[in-house]
């Protein structure tokens, strides 16, 4: 991540502070999922309100008897969104690699959000399988965005393997618990080389979580449920956009140090004093 500050301090829009993932460049630092919206129009309106340019889809078997919800891929493409397929639901490196290869064929993209989970209850990554899959996919020419535990060692290994982005979780997928271990997220930011974008993926509950992720020096935020299941998804989508932009500005502006005691804002010289 570059710490260059543009003279006008402009971030988050207009392409002056792009999020670069492999060969891709985005002016928005939000990546947004396409699941769980009340209906397709709300999804489209919410995506528009986030300003995102990169949206996730899942890859599932075609099932005639129990058809999956439509991806509305045509609508997403008409909207100009770059498609980021995921490997959600894969438990092994072998499954994840096959799903990634199928996604590349189906969607004509080398982007892949790599998820290899260990169980259904936590949806936490299986680190051994994740690292194996990441290596295979990077070697196969994929642009890998790897969903990871908030573990500095795993994140560093994923970056060293050549993942285009490393995406530690804030808290379990869909939990809305926010950033439960901001200290680990800070360490990950310090441990992973500046060339690898870091994105908080999963667990975002509300706008302040997204802003905090950006203030911690993260390059972006990936979320879905916090918008899709908000009472007013489009309004929350706008809140997330503003939060990510605000957090990015604040991080680059450089916050003041925390002090235990107060420090007067107004000058002490010349203040009016009345003798007792």
């Amino acid at each position, binding site marked *: 991540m570059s710490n260059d500050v543009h003279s006008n301090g402009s971030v988050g829009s207009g392409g002056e502070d792009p999020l670069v993932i492999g060969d891709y460049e985005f002016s928005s630092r939000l990546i947004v999922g396409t699941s769980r919206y009340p209906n397709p129009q709300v999804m489209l309106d919410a995506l528009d309100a986030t300003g995102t340019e990169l949206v996730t889809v899942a890859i599932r078997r075609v099932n*005639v008897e129990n058809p999956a919800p439509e991806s509305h891929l045509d609508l997403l493409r008409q909207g100009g969104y770059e498609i980021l397929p995921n490997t959600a639901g894969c438990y092994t490196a072998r499954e994840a690699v*096959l799903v990634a290869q199928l996604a590349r*064929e*189906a969607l004509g993209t080398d982007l892949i959000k790599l998820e290899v989970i260990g169980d259904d209850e936590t949806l936490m990554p299986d680190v051994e399988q994740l690292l194996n899959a990441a290596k295979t996919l990077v070697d196969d020419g994929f642009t890998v965005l790897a969903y990871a535990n908030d573990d500095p060692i795993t994140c560093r290994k994923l970056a060293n393997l050549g993942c285009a982005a490393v995406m530690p979780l804030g808290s379990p*997928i869909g939990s809305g618990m926010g950033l439960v271990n901001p200290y680990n997220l800070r360490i990950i930011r310090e441990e992973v080389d500046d060339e690898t974008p870091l994105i908080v993926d999963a667990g975002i509950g509300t706008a302040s979580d997204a802003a905090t992720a950006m203030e911690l020096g993260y390059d972006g935020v990936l979320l879905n449920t916090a918008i899709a299941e908000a009472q007013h998804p489009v309004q929350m989508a706008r809140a997330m956009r503003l939060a990510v932009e605000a957090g990015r500005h604040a991080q680059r502006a450089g916050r003041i140090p925390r002090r235990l005691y107060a420090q007067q804002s107004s000058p002490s010289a010349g203040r009016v004093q009345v003798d007792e």
Partner: protein
Amino acid sequence: MSSTTDAPIPVTVNGEARTVPNGYPLLDVLRDLEIDPEDAPGVAVAINDSVIRSQDWDNVTLSEEDTVEVIQAQQGG
């Protein structure tokens, strides 16, 4: 993936065991799934963990114990 005969063979399609004639065309597998092979954007196929590119679909037939995966994109996070 061999020449067509009438002998039935076991295969697996999207996790379900099926019996089809030996040499059953992949295109028929897709039609069974209500996919029009001529107009299937966002659909991909793998047999035995190898992706079959769409331009090759009409050259492929099934052999005994083949495992076929037919996928499409859906909403996801």
